């Protein structure tokens, strides 16, 4: 009888303590808020795959904090500001989520980061380039991507000279990102305009989600620009360029860094897409860093091809830097992580190059290139 009693007691004790054992090895959960469905689903899916590969690479090397694995928890924001706020609510409501990689679109990030800030959760944007996002003195918001004004400045330095363009048309799509980039470009061009070297002959917005752009394009055609800069997303960019060529606009098309990807080429068709330019961060395949090679190899092994746009790898780097900060500080406390990222992270090797943050939470030093769609429909650095 006594033995059975001990067995029962040991059993009960085991039952009580088992959960604690499990808890000791429980994974570090990092959230990913991205447009898994909706108009930017293509980008969202690649970001999800990238984060999962990044986590897999860390886990294969033994995880962080002496053996804890990284788990990615994905929440869909459908690329809509309203859904984005709900997605952020969902993630901050889960106690085990340490920090969040959030999100692709600037207009979605704006309300979402408000919520992360309110509930004190570190959130790192990976495709959010609108300048004002880091002008709000938020403590918990960072981004691994660049800012629109760095891109606007690059446009002003490189593009008019390349096409010997005097008359420039700028078209945006009224989203936080598109309008921001257009305004920054205008600002960057100001000194050249004042010197009488160039002029902006067209500056207007289109409505995203529309399919028919014949009217704004006709207006643009009548101003006879030498080069046309569109700061918006690929879904509209592909329709715009098709319809523009239909109504006889022949000037070079330069897209912002969200305008051209494989989908753009597919929708517009190779005949129209080839020779379209874009200002862009270096694409994944053009990155020289060893971390990039390792990451892309793992990505390609699993999915057959490397990501076709630059943004997903910024998501992977956001995840990496969160994991790095948790590992180095030994803490999952938001304020500790935020302070560490802001003050101590500097030149940490990442897939997209050395990672460091400014006091505002911006990424330090992001290079830009002029890319072009070549005759095979591949997007390559323009010579």
């Amino acid at each position, binding site marked *: 009888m006594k033995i059975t009693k001990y067995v029962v007691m040991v059993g009960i004790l085991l039952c009580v303590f088992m959960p604690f054992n499990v808890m000791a090895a429980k994974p570090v959960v990092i959230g990913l808020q991205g447009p898994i*469905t*909706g*108009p930017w*689903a*293509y980008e969202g899916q690649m970001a999800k795959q990238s984060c999962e590969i990044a986590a897999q690479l860390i886990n294969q090397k033994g995880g962080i904090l002496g053996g804890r694995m990284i788990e990615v928890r994905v929440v869909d924001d459908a690329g809509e500001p309203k859904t984005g706020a709900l997605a952020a609510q969902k993630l901050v409501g889960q106690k085990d989520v340490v920090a969040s990689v959030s999100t692709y679109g600037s207009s979605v990030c704006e309300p979402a980061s408000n919520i992360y800030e309110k509930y004190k959760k570190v959130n790192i944007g990976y495709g959010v380039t609108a300048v004002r996002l880091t002008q709000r003195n938020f403590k918990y918001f960072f981004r691994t991507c660049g800012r629109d004004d760095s891109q606007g400045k690059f446009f002003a330095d490189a593009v008019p000279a390349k096409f010997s363009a005097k008359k420039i048309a700028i078209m945006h799509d*009224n989203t936080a990102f598109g309008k921001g980039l257009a305004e920054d470009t205008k600002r960057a061009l100001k000194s050249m305009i004042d010197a009488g070297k160039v002029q902006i002959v067209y500056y*207007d*917005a*289109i*409505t995203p989600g529309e*399919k*028919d752009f*014949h*009217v*704004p394009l*006709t*207006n643009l055609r*009548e101003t006879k620009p030498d080069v046309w800069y569109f700061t918006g997303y690929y*879904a509209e960019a*592909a*329709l715009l360029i*098709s319809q523009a060529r*239909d*109504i*006889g606009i022949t000037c070079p098309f330069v897209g912002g860094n969200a305008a051209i990807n494989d*989908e753009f080429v*597919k*929708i*517009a*068709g*190779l*005949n*129209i897409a080839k020779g379209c330019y874009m200002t862009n961060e270096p694409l994944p395949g053009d990155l020289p860093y060893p971390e990039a090679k390792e990451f892309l190899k793992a990505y390609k092994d699993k999915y057959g091809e490397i990501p076709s746009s630059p943004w997903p790898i910024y998501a992977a780097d956001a995840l990496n830097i969160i994991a790095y900060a948790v590992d180095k500080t030994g803490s999952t406390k938001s304020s500790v992580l935020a302070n560490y990222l802001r003050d101590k992270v500097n030149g940490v090797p990442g897939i997209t190059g050395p990672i460091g943050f400014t006091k505002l939470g911006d990424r330090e030093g992001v290079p830009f290139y002029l890319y072009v769609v070549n005759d095979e429909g591949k997007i390559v650095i323009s010579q």
Partner: protein
Amino acid sequence: MEVFLEQLINGLTIGSFYALIALGYSMVYGILKLINFAHGDFFALGSYIGYTVLVFGSAFITSHFGLWGGMIAAMLVAAFCVAFVGVVVERAAYRPIYPAGRLPAVVSALGASIFIQNTIMVIWGPRYQAYPASLIPNIHIQLGNIHITLLQIVILVLSFFLLGILYWVIQKTTFGAAIRATALDKDTASLMGINFNRVIFFIFTLGPALGAMTGVMVGMYYRQISFTMGWNYGLKAFTATILGGIGNLPGAMFGGLILGVLEMFGAAYISAAWKDVFVFLILILVLIFRPTGLFGEKVAEKV
């Protein structure tokens, strides 16, 4: 002047899309007094089926039919498939609840709309799909300073042809007379020996088929389709129906064309961002002065 003409052609192109979709709304409303909210999704479904035909039959189409033949083939296949879906939806979602009255039927129509939309998403995925550019005839025409494409003209001609055929069927044939009689008074029409169920079968094949063909044309014209596209076009077509006078078929045709042209001119001469405001302002004005719509006298007569 050239820009004006160009915008007029662009407006007529979209207008003919609206008109073809509006006909489906108007026919169903005329007979059943039901606003068939699923109609926009029939249109989207047609667009996706046409896309599938073009993508999977691309080799066959280019070698046997040529590009224009491919377009016609895609339109016919889409029309047949969606006509079938239309009949099934009527049997499954509408017929069982006719006795319950008009409001439950409208709710059921909304349900059917959501169902079709999500089915499209599950089958073809949430991403934008692109009509293969290599399978779409792409010939530019430049008359003076007017830039249009041959596809636009073909779409216009085809739409007017379809509108003409439908007009002929409804106004000149015996069966069309049966439809009009049913629309005027269902019970008396049955007493005169008109098979009510056959009339319903007919409108639920013809309406969705027209919608599906429009879907293929829209896919060809814009090249980019999404599973939510049915809602927008459905709403615009519904507006066109009201503008022309709901239940009145020539009214739906003209309502669609007028709406398309108004939209283009609103965007061109007022502001692109305000074009919908402009369109709906006109709609409100028309409804204030002619509550039955522009061509709505016949509806008023029967009430």
